[in-house]
């Protein structure tokens, strides 16, 4: 008699009936295990949260006063006889894969991940399992990342050039993950790093969590514009084209995203420079990660699921496409009113702006449409 699968896909999220808990649910539940603090994975409204230690402060900052338990990588806790262990996912600081074990059956939920070590978060660690639930945001063979050192060399050179040409430098990346990765790789010999309020709030949360980051200066209405123009500005996508950003002109602005690999996407953003920098695995990274699990079955939750599933099956994996609310390619332009609401009080959303900025999947994969809206809300409240 086939028994019930250990994890199932429900309209609330990934559910473990035996353990009575959900992983990254998008509707309110009693018991939620959270892979990482991006808002398409960590929603507001659950009674109890379990996450990695390094997600603690960011989750509290983003979701407010929640009932949160945190554990270390490799630490196991037991819920109704089911063992839960977190392993590094290499996506952003505090991101984890969730391993679930019951009666010898092993499932792993990847959340979002990348295979290249970025020097900022704990690198991805392959975990042996029977069933692997994986993302595939960049599951097409045209996505192949360059080593990050090469990109950061280009970025630091570009900053230097801008200084010579009397241009301010604005680098755009998501407030959790990309921003810290960029920050840690900037050559401060060039100048100081100035941050948009949204990014600085996240930086502060991470510092409270014991993460050491390079020094940054929050931009406030009192920060002298000329000083800022001599440094480098780290801004979230919601700041692109805003009055806040225009104030520092003339500038050159660089956009950091995996989508920048395609000329079309780059031209749509009208960025001066596109840096192909992603916190998701590229094509080869996905395949090697899936292969390393030795799994019997892999489930693809978001990204180019249809093509990637077909390809995996052709090369001998047993792959299935599943539908979730994580930042999928299919849902990339979903309008905010269709998604559950998790905006903290006082942080208004701005649909028009969000749709303009978030037109490709990674945006959602990393932050989610609500994350975008949230960033924007903060941009209004938190920054100038």
């Amino acid at each position: 008699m086939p028994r019930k699968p250990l994890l199932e896909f429900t309209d609330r999220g990934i559910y473990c009936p035996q353990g009575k808990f959900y992983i990254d649910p998008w509707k309110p539940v009693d018991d939620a295990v959270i892979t990482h603090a991006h808002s398409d994975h960590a929603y507001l409204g659950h009674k109890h949260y379990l996450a990695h230690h390094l997600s603690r402060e960011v989750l509290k900052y983003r979701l407010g006063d929640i009932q949160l338990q945190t554990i270390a990588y490799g630490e196991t806790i037991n819920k109704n006889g089911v063992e839960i262990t977190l392993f590094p996912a290499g996506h952003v600081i505090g991101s984890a894969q969730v391993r679930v074990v019951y009666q010898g059956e092993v499932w792993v939920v990847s959340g979002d991940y990348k295979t290249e070590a970025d020097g900022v978060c704990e690198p991805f660690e392959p975990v042996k399992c029977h069933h692997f639930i994986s993302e595939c945001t960049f599951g097409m063979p045209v996505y192949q990342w360059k080593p990050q050192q090469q990109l950061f060399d280009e970025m630091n050179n570009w900053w230097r050039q801008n200084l010579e040409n009397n241009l301010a430098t604005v680098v755009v990346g998501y407030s959790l993950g990309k921003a810290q990765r960029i920050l840690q790789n900037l050559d401060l010999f060039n100048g100081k790093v100035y941050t948009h309020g949204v990014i600085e709030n996240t930086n502060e949360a991470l510092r409270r969590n014991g993460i050491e980051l390079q020094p940054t200066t929050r931009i406030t209405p009192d920060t002298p514009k000329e000083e800022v123009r001599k440094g480098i500005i780290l801004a979230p996508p919601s700041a692109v084209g805003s009055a806040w950003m225009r104030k520092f002109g003339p500038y050159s602005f660089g956009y950091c995203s995996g989508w920048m690999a395609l000329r079309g996407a780059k031209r749509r953003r009208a960025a001066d420079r596109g840096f192909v920098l992603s916190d998701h695995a590229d094509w080869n990274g996905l395949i090697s990660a899936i292969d390393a699990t030795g799994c019997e079955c892999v489930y693809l939750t978001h990204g180019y699921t249809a093509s990637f599933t077909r390809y995996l099956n052709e090369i001998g994996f047993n792959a299935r496409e599943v539908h979730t609310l994580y930042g999928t390619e299919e849902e990339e332009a979903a309008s905010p009113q269709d998604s559950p609401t998790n905006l903290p009080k006082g942080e208004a959303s701005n649909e028009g702006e969000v749709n303009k900025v978030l037109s490709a999947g990674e945006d959602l994969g990393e932050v989610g449409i609500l994350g975008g809206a949230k960033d924007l809300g903060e941009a209004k409240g938190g920054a100038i």
Partner: protein
Amino acid sequence: MKAFAQLFLSLDETNKTNEKVKVLKDYFNCVPDTDKMHMLALFTGRKSKRQINSTQFRLWAIEALKIPSWLFEESYHVVGDLAETIALLFPQNNTGGSSKTLTEWIAEINNLSTYGDEEKRHWLQQSWQLLDTQERFVFNKILTGSFRVGVSQSLVVKAIADIADLDAAVLTHRIMGNWRPEDYTFRELIQPQQEAEDISRPYPFFLAYPIQETSTVQKSVEDLQQTLGEASEWQAEWKWDGIRAQLIKRDGQLFIWSRGEDLSTDRFPELHPFMNELPDGTVLDGEILSFRQGKPLPFNVLQARIGRKNLSKKILEESPVALIAYDCLEYEGKDIREKTQTERRELLEHLQAKTAYPDVFNISTLIDFDSWESLSRKRQQSREMIAEGIMLKRKSATYQVGRKRGDWWKWKIDPLSVDAVMIYAQKGHGRRADLYTDYTFAVWDGDKLVPFAKAYSGLTDAEINKVDAFVKRNTLEKFGPVRTVKPELVFEIGFEGINKSTRHKSGVALRFPRILRWRHDKPKEEADTIETLKAFLE
């Protein structure tokens, strides 16, 4: 090749005109002269013969990449550009790319004509392995001959004009026509006085600006008065819908150039007798149209002929062409573009008066009008005249270079339009890659929707994002790259003309269909019917 690949990347990385000119100048200053001429040929759309066809190109890429062909095609739909797809699919290499110059690469490419298929395949696959991603991209662009870059010819000309200290209009003229980078040197191009002018060389076309930017906002008589001044300073002609062309007679030889700078002399044999009769040193500007009994025929009659390689007797009988001349640019061997419109018109009339072929060598009649108001009324007759609207030319204007505001304006009639339902969608290309931007529209035939037109343009970026999201969430079926979507969204589709067609399900073919606006206010039931559409056929 490295410099050329870098040029492409740098041009992509800026949206500012001045920056682009600077990038172009930097490029010209650092590459050999032969590279400059090859770059110029590529950037001005001069295609050399395609050596490897598209089927071979795909096939050999798939083979070298060792991926299934469906995955290759899916990748292509994500990227929206074949050259870029192949560039990205190969692994990133650390070979440092190629040290050969653009000239050397193009020589190798041209040499492919002496190769058999097997040698071509080997050469191509080896080149892909050798080049780095960016080089591979421009290399593919050169090979596939689809060299559209985000840089207008005028910017390239400006960069060279700056470097060589020459007038941009002179330079624009010098790069017109039939030259090949192999036998036109940079030195020849930029010398102060050119010794041997190429007798086939056309002048740059002067193009009109639309006076009415969009079809939804009408220009009133007062607007015209304000923009253009006194009506008496202008001449008006019908705007014909044919092939804009320049006809050259020099040293006893004939040349017919289309606006796309294609030499089409042989495609229009009917025009040769009257051209032979013209004095040497004559250049005319005008429109070639299909004509019968002194009347222009709709554009599709001409279109049927343009596509043919061989002009059969039947085609020549069914779709005879004639010229409607607008202007005279060279008279008695002298460039007269600096003369006024009125003076040039007189010379043109003088030439036409002497022709023995007045049926073929027509002259564009001047519309008689004494005020903007009366012209505005005349414009309403455009469709009966088989014209697209009216052309306005300032009587005192010289013949200028390219599309300029001020002295030539086109005042088109409003497009015909119907409200239609979107039923299929496909991903776009270039800037619209990976977004659903190409739509098929249908009208009602009883309780069924019949597709009648495809349209790509007319929506804003924000609207495109919304339609894209709708398509992704309302897909009923997928056929390769095409999705059948839930019929729900209604758009107003504009078009210039309509003709019967046996090739289309709907029985009609539209000329230049595009989206005028999204009818959020209309449910799909209120879209137009096939009867409405067919009523336009009269």
